[in-house]
């Protein structure tokens, strides 16, 4: 049985206990998948799982009241968000059923677009997409093009330590045994630039921000909804001006509010319509928190997030050093 069929069978078996199961379905063209909300057995046939299932579906978990029982399909990275939500008691374990998957990596459609553009082809004209021997095979403008997954996969997948769902009630397929060490080489490389160059980088990137807040809305751990201080008048942290300072400060809010909580799932960056590398800010915090507290968010349901905790004598903070 293929992984996808195994998953479908598990969902059919468990559906009677659940109000809805959230998975992925076919999107508006062959390269896009879209969240699928399964409420009946007939819906299960629409379920898809392949490296185009990029969305972290756990972001929907906090949008249902506690009266509903929700099933959610998760890849390794997505499952960490479920764990983090449990750690923070934002969802209840008995209200959530996790369908865990092993995942070898998802595609980055930005990279696909650029790879096709380099061959003078337009991603919008792709008529068919499939996977064979580690390649993404697309039919575009009458040609068949093979793009090696290694070249078009999301950066986060190349450094993934958690290919298998870290929490699950059902697990389809065979667990993947290898795991990459994440050395935060990207952060280190960025920080080889001078401080002036770094700020200039953000200036150029943030100039494009349209303040759509897609980054926040996609984030599974941004749960304040209408109370987000990035949009409230009282307190008025961010004004209605569309200057760089406002745009950048919104990112400071997102980053600091995710410190010690962010699982580096990369949804903020993926959702951004103007490709601002937002994950870099969050990875920097992740790196420092790992160094300070030896902590990775969303890996242990019983762990207390480090910024909600303290030690009277900290091991790694030289408090009087200044």
């Amino acid at each position, binding site marked *: 049985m293929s992984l996808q069929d195994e998953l479908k069978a598990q969902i059919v078996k468990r559906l009677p206990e659940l109000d809805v199961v959230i998975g992925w379905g076919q999107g508006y063209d062959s390269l896009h998948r879209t969240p699928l909300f399964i409420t009946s057995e007939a819906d299960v046939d629409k379920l898809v799982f392949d490296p185009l299932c990029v969305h972290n579906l756990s972001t929907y978990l906090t949008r249902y009241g506690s009266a509903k029982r929700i099933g959610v399909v998760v890849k390794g990275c997505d499952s960490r968000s479920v764990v983090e939500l449990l750690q923070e008691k934002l969802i209840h374990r008995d209200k959530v059923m996790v369908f865990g998957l092993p995942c070898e990596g998802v595609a980055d459609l930005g990279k696909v677009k650029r790879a096709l553009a380099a061959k003078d082809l337009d991603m919008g004209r792709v008529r068919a997409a499939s996977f064979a021997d580690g390649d993404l095979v697309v039919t575009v403008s009458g040609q068949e093009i093979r793009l090696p997954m290694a070249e078009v996969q999301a950066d986060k997948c190349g450094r993934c330590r958690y290919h298998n769902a870290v929490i699950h009630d059902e697990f389809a397929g065979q667990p993947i045994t290898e795991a990459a060490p994440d050395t935060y080489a990207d*952060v280190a490389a*960025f*920080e080889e630039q001078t*401080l*002036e*160059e*770094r*700020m*200039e*980088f*953000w*200036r150029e990137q*943030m*100039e494009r921000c349209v303040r759509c807040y897609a980054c926040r809305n996609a984030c599974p751990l941004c749960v304040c909804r209408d109370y987000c201080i990035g949009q409230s008048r009282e307190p008025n*942290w961010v004004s209605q001006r569309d*200057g*760089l*300072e406002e745009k*950048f*400060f919104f990112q*400071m*809010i997102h*980053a*600091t509010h995710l*410190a*010690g909580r962010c699982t580096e799932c990369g949804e903020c960056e993926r959702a951004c319509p103007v490709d601002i590398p937002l994950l*870099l*800010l969050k990875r*920097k*915090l992740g790196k*420092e*928190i790992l160094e*300070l*507290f030896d902590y990775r968010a969303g890996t242990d349901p019983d762990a207390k997030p*480090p*910024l909600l*905790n*303290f*030690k*009277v004598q*900290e091991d790694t*903070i030289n*408090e*009087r050093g*200044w």
Partner: protein
Amino acid sequence: MDKELRIVGFLCNWCSYGGADTAGVGRFVQPTDLRIIRMPCSGRIDPLFVLKTLIGGADGVLVSGCHPRDCHYAEGNYYARRRLEVLKRFLPIIGIDPGRFEYTWVSASEGQRWQHVVTSFTNQIHALGPVQRIGRQSLAKACSLGTVLEPLA
């Protein structure tokens, strides 16, 4: 010393604000670049206060609270210590020198220590000079584009 810079201090009401007062009553000479904002506790200090201040153009930010074990609310400064340490380590990625932000502990009786903290922090900020701002330069850039275009009009 050269022209005054803008340094903002967030001080807890119970210890450091008292310490600064002690230094003043004792007439200890201090640099005058620092503007103090009194907070109920160092645990009240949201790292966003510091980021807003720095991004908004302050050249330095100093946070000072009660020594660990002396917090008026018992635990506020323990939480603050973790948050502020993470914040300090975050600053380099956005192009702000981590030396522009320091946090420390000064008790109400430590007038002399307060004088030392203010003096060394002010010197540190003067060594770094004025802060670079994310918004300002783009304004300058837009203006310079304007002057380039002028002859064409």
